[in-house]
């Protein structure tokens, strides 16, 4: 190795392979988009998947929501409980999709897709971002379906363009963050059976210890303490502020900041741990 002048993993420009003629950011965008597009195409081949996954959030909304709403356990002023619950259910459904994305990732390890991707010029962060984009595609499809149901059922949502766009943006941020968390988990457990158990173990507490179902104010102090550091709480509060005009602290930018920071940390960690760890 006489002239190992290029200590960087990239060779000097004149002898670069054609695939590296575009910049790293372009390649990253291309890779992420490719994975999002693949996910969209898969959904197109399998509509049933979205329908079956929508059953659970709708049960929460119409069975649980109606029961709690009729019992008037929660005093929400003029706000109907189902409207209050809708953003929580939306966030929960997206989180379920994101967290079980890790399962797909383990599956891709067991077959050869992950090895194959790692041997392409895609960077590890684009692989992680691409997976996030895939989860976002699914979560967004489901959110749009849920919004349509809310409209048909005449549940009292604020229909403003800014609110809807903000809602979808917040959902994407949260989904991407939980998808990264799920990839970290996949890197740690590596086996499908164990992932199922641990996934449940993490998901349900995150859901109950958040403001998805009830306001922080009715929680016992210990639960409120947990909910205050739970990123799902901020995601739900942001969504609720934008969709029904009620929030916790009532500052949407703070919710975006917290969920965004959570995403940044998870993305960083997932890029480091996954995908090499899972090989």
């Amino acid at each position, binding site marked *: 190795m006489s002239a190992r002048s290029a200590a960087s*993993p990239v060779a000097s420009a004149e002898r670069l392979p054609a695939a*590296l003629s575009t910049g790293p950011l372009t390649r990253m965008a291309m890779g992420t988009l490719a994975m999002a597009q693949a996910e969209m195409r898969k959904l197109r081949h399998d509509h049933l998947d979205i329908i079956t996954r929508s059953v659970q959030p709708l049960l929460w909304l119409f069975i649980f929501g109606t029961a709690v709403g009729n019992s008037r356990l929660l005093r929400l002023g003029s706000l109907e409980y189902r409207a209050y619950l809708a953003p929580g259910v939306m966030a929960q459904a997206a989180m379920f999709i994101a967290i079980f994305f890790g399962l797909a990732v383990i599956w891709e390890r067991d*077959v050869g897709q992950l090895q194959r991707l*790692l041997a*392409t010029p895609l960077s590890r962060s684009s692989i992680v971002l691409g997976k996030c984009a895939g989860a976002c595609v699914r979560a967004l499809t489901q959110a749009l379906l849920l919004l349509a149901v809310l409209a048909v059922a005449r549940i009292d949502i604020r229909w403003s363009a800014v609110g809807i766009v903000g809602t979808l943006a917040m959902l994407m941020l949260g989904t991407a963050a939980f998808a990264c968390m799920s990839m970290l988990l996949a890197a740690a457990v590596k086996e499908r059976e164990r992932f199922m158990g641990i996934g449940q173990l993490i998901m349900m507490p995150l859901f109950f210890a958040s403001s998805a179902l009830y306001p922080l104010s009715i929680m016992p102090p210990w639960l409120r303490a947990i909910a205050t550091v739970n990123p799902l709480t901020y995601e739900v509060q942001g969504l609720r502020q934008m969709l029904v005009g009620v929030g916790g602290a009532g500052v949407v930018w703070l919710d975006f900041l917290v969920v965004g920071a959570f995403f940044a940390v998870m993305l960083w960690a997932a890029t480091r741990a996954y995908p090499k760890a899972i090989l």
Partner: protein
Amino acid sequence: MSPSATEPALLVDDLVVRFGELEAVGGVSFAVGQGEVFGLLGPNGAGKTTTIRVLTTLLPPTSGRARVAGFDVRTESLAVRASIGYIPQAISVDGALTAFENLDFYGQVTGVPRGVRRERIAQAVETMGLAPMLDRLARTLSGGMLRRLEIATALLNRPAVLFLDEPTVGLDPTARQLVWEHLQAMREEEATTILVTTHLMEEAERHCDRVGVIDRGRLVEQGEPAELLERHHSDSLEEVFTEVTGRPIGELASDEEGRLADVRAQRSVARRLG
């Protein structure tokens, strides 16, 4: 240090890979010329896949060096990845996408510019004989079709070196023959260098320009198939293997069998391919 016409497409020099105590590859050296088909032969657990993982930059070598298409796997890994096609033993196409969508996906992630992607896909489809099944979901394709589809997805970026890890495992003889026919057709068109691993000696004998026999992490013999047969006064590479390793291929020490997850993955792949 630019890749000259004389630099081999693959250069492996005293490669060592250790996983803790276990030495998976123990000082392997070989070179593969441009346009050659080189077969790495050996039983499961011999170190074939580990060698491929180093050459495809998935695994850093413990020591020694390896150059692929003129680039060092350690210091120029990105350039290596941009110069190769790699088809792992397990299934790498997505069953929930159609054959065309799989091609399009791998075209995108291997950096094939949008302007030429359609054209490249059309060429690969032609070479691998995939035209009638383009719109079918990959999970409905037979094992042989799947392999050809995977090879097609690896050709789109015009790789200098193509790595095929056990490409015919789980295929019936007809499908196996067809995969090789298409590979040969591709070679004639593109002069791509191919490194293929197999435990089927007969296949290597027929289709490889040169072979290397790997056993317990060491390359114990290499040369042209005919040359090896002559040197060991054998009728088949299987006999050559027995001669150089002292035991017939297919016999494994129990510690070479791999973890449960690997075995399970391998079997499920064989089932889906079969």
